[in-house]
């Protein structure tokens, strides 16, 4: 190749870099990150936020999640029978976490939410030296810690107990009704001398349940 052509191209290239070197104040395109921060656009998909008071605990977000990283536990129901739980709309939540070792920030969880209460916010620098610390508790906006786990464990038990109680209550009611019926039937049976069918068929749990995950 022509040596002068090469030389000319080299000089052209060096001219460009020199131009940048001399105008470096004008051409500067970086910022000093921790002190200056770039504008985060409104649609930025960062760390999740949850407006707990709106949540209806429908599991739509955890269902749509392609990597299944949203964990929800709690009790459904308008009165919120779980003491110490986080009150949502028609639900009391004990756990609503996102595991950021798994999350891929696709934003699919935002869309199906009926009250639009879960959204990905502008925060992106979630960091930790420990993998177990990468789970965020959306109810408190903090890291999901062991004490949270203790509460969730307790709530799980409490939930079971409440359901059990409810069931028992219902059963008792049913039994009472059945007994009443039986009594009535017995009263009738006395006439017909037939045994009353004592059936306390179990009714499915109506609206409360434990988070599937």
């Amino acid at each position, binding site marked *: 190749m022509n040596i002068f052509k090469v030389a000319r191209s080299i000089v052209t290239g060096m001219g460009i*870099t020199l131009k940048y070197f001399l105008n470096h104040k004008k051409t500067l395109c*970086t910022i000093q990150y921790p002190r200056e921060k770039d504008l985060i656009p409104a649609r930025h998909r960062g760390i999740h936020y949850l407006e707990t008071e709106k949540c209806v605990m429908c599991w739509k977000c955890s269902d749509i999640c392609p990597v299944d990283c949203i964990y929800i536990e709690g009790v459904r129901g308008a009165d919120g029978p779980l003491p110490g739980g986080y009150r949502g709309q028609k639900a009391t939540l004990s756990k609503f976490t996102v595991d950021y070792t798994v999350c891929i920030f696709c934003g699919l969880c935002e869309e199906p939410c009926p009250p639009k209460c879960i959204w990905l916010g502008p925060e992106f620098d979630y960091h930790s030296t420990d993998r177990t610390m990468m789970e965020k508790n959306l109810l408190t906006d903090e890291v999901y810690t062991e004490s949270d786990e203790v509460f969730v464990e307790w709530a799980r038990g409490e939930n079971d107990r409440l359901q059990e109680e409810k069931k028992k209550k219902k059963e008792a009611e049913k039994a009472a009704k059945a007994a009443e019926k039986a009594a009535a039937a017995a009263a009738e049976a006395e006439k017909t001398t037939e045994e009353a069918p004592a059936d306390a068929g179990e009714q499915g749990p109506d609206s409360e349940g434990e988070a599937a995950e």
Partner: protein
Amino acid sequence: MNLAVFTTFLGQAGQAIEEKVIEKGIVDFAADYSTKWDGGGEGGLFLAGAVRWLVETYTVPDWVPLSSVINGTLGAETFPELGGLLITIGMVFGFVNIFAIGAVWSERKVSAHMQCRLGPMEVGPHGLLQTVADGLKLLTKEDIIPRLADKTLFAIAPAVVFAGVLMRFVPLPFGDQLIASDLDLGLFFVAAVGAVEVLGVIMAGWASNNKWSLFATIRTATQMVSYEIPIGIAFVTVILCCGSFSLVDVVNMQGGTLTDIDGEAHNGWAWHWNLFRNPFMLILAITYFIASLAECKRAPFDLPEAESELVSGFHTEYTGMRFALFFLAEYAAMYLVAAVAVVLFLGGWWSGIYWVDEIGMGTDTWLASWLDGVLGPTLTAVLGVLIKVKVFLTKAFILVFIQMWVRWTLPRVRLDQMMYVCWKVLLPASLVCLIGSCLWELATGGASFFGFGIVVK
């Protein structure tokens, strides 16, 4: 050592120096006690003299083990130049280190500004201390030697590389009279000792027991051995024109008060630099600069450490201080080739303006006389020395900047292209320049481009 003894020792020494200085005056004191750093007398360094005087006067106290041996071998009688040596080594080593720190910082800044970035900004103002912090980090890093490496070679290779570069600083002037040792065969020494560095690199690459390092080693060997030829021819041409191997002589022929063949004195200006001595010198300077880029493994000839091919090549396996030594050596070599270029072609410490050059030289120019009147002769002498140092360093630093500029602009050449550039472009070009310069000197009777022949003062 006992602290009390030490303080007394220092106190006595200080007192003694003070007495001597009062007795003789600072200039004479320095002149007396420094041979190496003081050729002209007035520009000598006080410190050099002081240390030398200390070594000559004081002996190691008896309670120190082996004191008799030390006094016998290193004492004033057997080794009278120890003080000067220590100072010289200290100065050169210190300069290399400080230069490397500054050069790494400025390389980062230069590259950053060329790339629309800011570069280091955190440690110190504008990140000035970043390199120091990095150096400290390297010092505290674990020294890893691969299990299958040749441990001895691996350990000494960085030292060999660094020594190879540092030794080349010996005949290199930093300014008028500021020279570790003005060797008669200075240029020859520079060229010859350069081979030690190649040896060290080969040792490092081979001992690492890493195939990539081995590639780098072979590349280094081919590259540095090849490129020594155009560099050697550039040296030979300058030596032929100037008639001396000494770097000081070469510089002295490019500025200041010049003496021609007839013994007539001329004022030296910028156009008396070797660069403009004849048209061939200009081409030769360019070939020397390109070859010197290859010699110190800088882009576009950074094949031995090509990070996208060999992943830093021969020092892949090195960590910590051993790696830092390679790093220091690289930057020291950068300065070295630039300084040699300044000596050979760019008039050394001569600023190119006759009046400025003559400050403190004892000649009677208007500027010098005026300064004499304002500052007095001693300060003018010191000022003259400082200006020359400054001029020399500025020229060298500009060349170093060009090296960086080239690195941050150009892609890397391939091995065969590198050899092509050396053997088919630079070698013929420099040979033509050699022959051309010889013919020019013959035709003009030793006269330079501007009409008069210059002989060594």
